[in-house]
């Protein structure tokens, strides 16, 4: 019997400093003979020595394997310790866990990504995956648009990534809550960007960010005619096991780690969740 809680050691190959709070850690499993695959939207349980574990979304695409990216914001003890790690140090990972985004459903659709702050991490995996398949006749999305909100210009993460996406034909719209003197782009909440965007029957929206942002974006999307089945989000909850037994992420009869973290709006509507609270 496999011990479900013993992680596999992985080496930090590179650390990409995204901003003051967020860094992307590029990992590789030490034992390359361990079979490992995943799909966008899934997460890992990350072990940092002496700190325990935390659930972290994979921000790279499976097409980049054996590289696994974890984009981590400093929030508590473990994430702060992670930010102290150096390239070459080892961490532990186990997983992947959770339901991925239904990638098959996205073929030939107009994909609209709406993200706030670190919320772009799980969506980045989807965008990279879609771009990888953009030349395939069977797997490509029709179009990709990203609306990305940050608190201030210095808080914008994934800057080189977004400019790279722009070159590959992704319509990237960035906005900041508070501008500084150098900022030339949009100022305002990401909810202000959305009305300027066209939503059709062919739109599929993927939303990730703080609960309040999710709530307002979902309401807006619905008002603009987006179908419940075509709106997806990924929920963040405190998690300990990743396998549906510890109970921490229990949500009205469901386990976010097993039944989510990706949910469609039609699924969320059957549950009592703060992201939809009035």
């Amino acid at each position, binding site marked *: *019997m496999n*011990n479900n809680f*013993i992680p596999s*050691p992985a080496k930090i190959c590179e650390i990409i400093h995204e901003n003051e709070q967020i860094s992307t850690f590029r990992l590789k499993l030490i034992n390359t003979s361990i079979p490992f695959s995943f799909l966008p939207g899934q997460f890992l349980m990350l072990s940092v020595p002496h700190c325990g574990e935390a659930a972290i979304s994979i921000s790279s695409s499976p097409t980049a394997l054996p590289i696994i990216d974890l984009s981590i914001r400093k*929030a508590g003890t473990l994430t702060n310790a992670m930010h102290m790690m150096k390239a070459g140090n080892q961490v532990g990972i186990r997983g992947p866990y959770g339901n991925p985004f239904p990638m098959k459903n996205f073929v030939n659709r107009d994909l609209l990504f709406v993200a706030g702050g670190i919320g772009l991490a799980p969506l980045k995996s989807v965008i990279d995956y879609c771009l990888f398949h953009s030349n395939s006749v069977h797997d490509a999305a029709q179009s990709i648009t990203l609306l990305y909100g940050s608190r201030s210009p210095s808080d914008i993460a994934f800057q080189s990534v977004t400019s790279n996406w722009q070159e590959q034909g992704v319509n990237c719209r960035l906005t900041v809550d508070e501008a500084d003197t150098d900022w030339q782009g949009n100022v305002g909440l990401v909810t202000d960007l959305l009305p300027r965007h066209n939503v059709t029957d062919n739109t599929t929206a993927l939303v990730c960010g703080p609960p309040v942002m999710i709530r307002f974006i979902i309401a807006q999307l619905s008002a603009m005619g987006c179908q419940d089945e075509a709106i997806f989000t990924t929920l963040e909850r405190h998690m*300990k096991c990743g396998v549906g037994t510890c109970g921490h992420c229990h949500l009205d009869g469901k386990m976010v780690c097993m039944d989510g973290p990706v949910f469609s709006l039609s699924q969320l509507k059957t549950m009592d969740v703060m992201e939809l609270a009035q």
Partner: protein
Amino acid sequence: MIDLKELILSKDNLIPLLRKLKKDARLIAPIKNEYGDTLFSEIDDIDAMKIDLHNQPQASLKPFFLPQQETLAGYTVNNGEYSFTPPDKAQDTIFFGVRSCDLTALLYMDLIFSKPSKDATYYDRRNHSLIITLGCNQPFANCFCEATGSGPYLEYGYGLQFIDLGDRYFVSAGRGKGADLLKKWAYFFREVNEEDQKKRYQLFLEARGQFTRNIQVAHACQKLQEEAVPEEIWETLSRRCYDCGGCAYVCPTCTCYSIDDMAQGTNHGIRVRSWDACTSSGFTRMAGGHNPTDRSRYALKRRFLHKLKHDYAHHGKPSCTGCGRCVDICFGGVDITTFIDLLTTQKTT
């Protein structure tokens, strides 16, 4: 050839039988300690220790399968290298004198820890265990297992089930290890006769009629499937929940846990799993401080709905086994029976 499914054991032969069983496995039974508490304990000296089959064991079997604290792995960190070692293996254990409610709880835990794959340490212990139950002829003060469908006698799940017929036990064997055991020690037993059967049914009937508490569990489960619980019920309950976690710790089916790393030095430590309680606010609080649960209003919502609504929907029965332990432990008097009473006596609007 005698039927090995059901046999009679004279009470005179109980200790001799247990003495034999103890040769091949660790033996655990309810023991009355010097404070007068009855607890499941390992028997070292079967002649010196007092097996107590008259009082309800204060703790369930849960600690033996999901210990209050267990090591899931050891870890070392050397020059940035990070490695893990597996925990100790379980040993063969026979549990004697287990009540129906506690075995039902164990069967529920089997279900919980089987998905998505079998939980390693739980199933290691479970696969090395054999459970001998004792049907309850007389419910204890706070018991309501009949209302939860988990007693006073059981139909399945046990290795062996003992029913006290006065001077003898009526013993039924479950599949596998239980039947093997009867076969191996057949010479301690005799066949069942008609009088034994009659007495067993008579005692069963009597036991069912002796519950002092009338808890409308089925009604509550049904009602929860159909309608939302009025807000004021949650608020009444939350006001009196002082977050001691006692209900979750004594509950035989509360399996929520935490995993923490504990450093044992600068370069090594252990990963431990320990009991947790969904009634605590720290249970759902995320790194950074955001908490999706408002404890001041919904401290007990998750606990009661999980047991009576969600598990009923998923498994067809609630995961409360009516053992009544939470009734005694709660400082605020807001145990599951309070909730069921509030819910079922409330007028439907």
